[in-house]
């Protein structure tokens, strides 16, 4: 037992992950996206927002890898910078939704009874709308901007986390170590923070990875209909929206951002699936 116990567990997780082919595949895609996003200023050959009207709608080639849009901007550069935006949107949405949802769910499940009933019915109300439609309505009501799109997307994702964590909390709160903690003098807040939430973390992480793709997709959809990122921000959904008009003649305009959305979403989904298997304690050792 040389290393710190938490490092040991982390090492074990990584070791198991590396033996799982779909985890490796998803991980590679995600890592590639993250690298492209982080390295965008270095990798991008052009300024993503610089207009160059002389080079409008050029086909993919040596000068412009993915071609140019109707204002002569380099699509490859825009897609790279778009990765920054989309990934940070996804992470922000998941963080906001995950933390809020987990807190709501843990509180609800731990206390049970009336509190649980009231909270869960509220969550049901949110769930009863299709998430995209509700996000759309919220974003429209708050006014078109990237921040509002993020908040709207996060809001519709809260119930997913709340329900999942509540279910786990219902199980965890009956476990003897919670009773043991209570007889040692722990209060409700302490038990939720130290016992309920950490034991729900595994499934919450899996859900977060799985829904990250969805979050990116919803945010892109909001941008697509003009409620999210505003021009000239190089957001993938917004790029598809403006490229749509040219799809018949200049296929590259909408296709490349679309492909990036596709890869990112698939990458996160595959990785999330694999992560679910790996974090399952029954097959862990």
């Amino acid at each position, binding site marked *: *037992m040389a290393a710190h*116990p*938490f490092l040991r*567990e982390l090492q074990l997780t990584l070791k198991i992950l590396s033996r799982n082919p779909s985890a490796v595949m998803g991980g590679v895609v995600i890592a590639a996206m993250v690298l492209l996003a982080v390295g965008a200023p270095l990798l991008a050959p052009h300024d993503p927002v610089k207009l160059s009207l002389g080079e409008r709608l050029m086909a993919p080639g040596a000068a412009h890898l993915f071609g140019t849009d109707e204002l002569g901007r380099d699509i490859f550069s825009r897609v790279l910078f778009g990765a920054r935006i989309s990934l940070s949107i996804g992470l922000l949405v998941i963080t906001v939704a995950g933390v809020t949802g987990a807190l709501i769910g843990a509180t609800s499940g731990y206390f049970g*009874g009336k509190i649980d009933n009231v909270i869960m019915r509220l969550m049901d109300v949110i769930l009863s709308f299709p998430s995209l439609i509700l996000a759309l309505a919220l974003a429209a009501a708050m006014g078109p901007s990237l921040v509002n799109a993020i908040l709207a997307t996060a809001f519709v994702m809260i119930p997913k986390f709340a329900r999942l964590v509540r279910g786990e909390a219902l199980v965890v709160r009956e*476990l*003897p*170590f919670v*009773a*043991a*903690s*209570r*007889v*040692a*003098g*722990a*209060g409700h807040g*302490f038990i939720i923070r*130290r*016992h309920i939430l*950490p*034991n729900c*973390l595994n499934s919450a992480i899996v859900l977060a990875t799985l829904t990250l793709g969805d979050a990116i997709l919803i945010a892109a959809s909001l941008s697509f209909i003009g409620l999210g990122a505003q021009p000239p921000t190089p957001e993938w959904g917004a790029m598809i929206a403006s490229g749509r008009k040219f799809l018949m003649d200049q296929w590259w305009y909408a296709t490349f951002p679309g492909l990036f959305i596709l890869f990112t979403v698939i990458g996160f989904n595959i990785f999330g699936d694999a992560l679910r298997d790996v974090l399952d304690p029954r097959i862990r050792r």
Partner: protein
Amino acid sequence: MNAPLLDIRDLSVSFDTYQGRARVLEKASLTVNQGEIMGLVGESGCGKSVLSRSVLRIIPTPPGSIDGGQILFEGRDLLRLPQGEMRRLRGERISMIFQEPMNSLNPVFTVGNQMREVVRAHRSASRAEATDACLEMLDAVRLPEPRSVLRAFPHELSGGMRQRVMIAMALICNPALLLADEPTTALDVTVQGQILAILAELAGRQGLSILFVTHDMGVVAQLCHRVAVMYAGQVVEIADVGSIFARPAHPYTQGLIASIPGRVSSGELYAIPGSVPSPIEPPPGCRFRPRCPHAKGGGCSDVAPEMVRVAPDHSVACHLFTSGGLP
């Protein structure tokens, strides 16, 4: 003699169920003296665990409710204590260990992490001081290599080790009373013996009182000073451990003793006929009457027997001993 450390008087607890109100404890009384190990025996479902959990008020309410009685601890009625003060008592003056050592530790944190937490929740101590206290306590429960135990996750320890960690955690704040709810039931016999020896030693050394819940008469004989026998939610007999085995007074206790394997050498093992009555509709009068070999009509089926003293440290609730015999 001084006032007892723990004095449970006429405690009644019931639970709401779909079939009706289950009266799980009915006017149960017992005392635990300073430095004494009190055994609490009875078959499954007789209310032993509910009794011990009521002391710390960790009965889930609803569906449970404490309907009456007093639980006097160091002269204060725990049932009337405000939540905040009750919380301060838990872990500091009264601790509890449970049957399931497998799940009694949070699987996602190291043992040290959880033990230090208990120390620091009850007194201001630096991390290093807390660690020292943990090491000392782990040593007291005779865990080898306490340092590596502190760094281990619960799943890396065996059941016996985990129960020892639980005992160490329960005793780390020097409580006056330890409630032990079948702490050795899930362990094998050798480990059980070690745990009992540790408990006996700590009780003797620290002046700790233990309320030891079990259904194992062998454990009682080995560990306890006095014994309370419960049947169907009532305490039916209390005596020092010698008297219980030598002169059991209540027919139920006699049955329990007779059914210990190996005590009677002749052939088949004795079993008390019948089964425990439903707590929802207990039989009127004496609750043991339907299974009692000495039961008579009249008194036994009409009047619930009161506790009577048959010897200086021996009380029993049975009409065979009530003054003037049966009506």
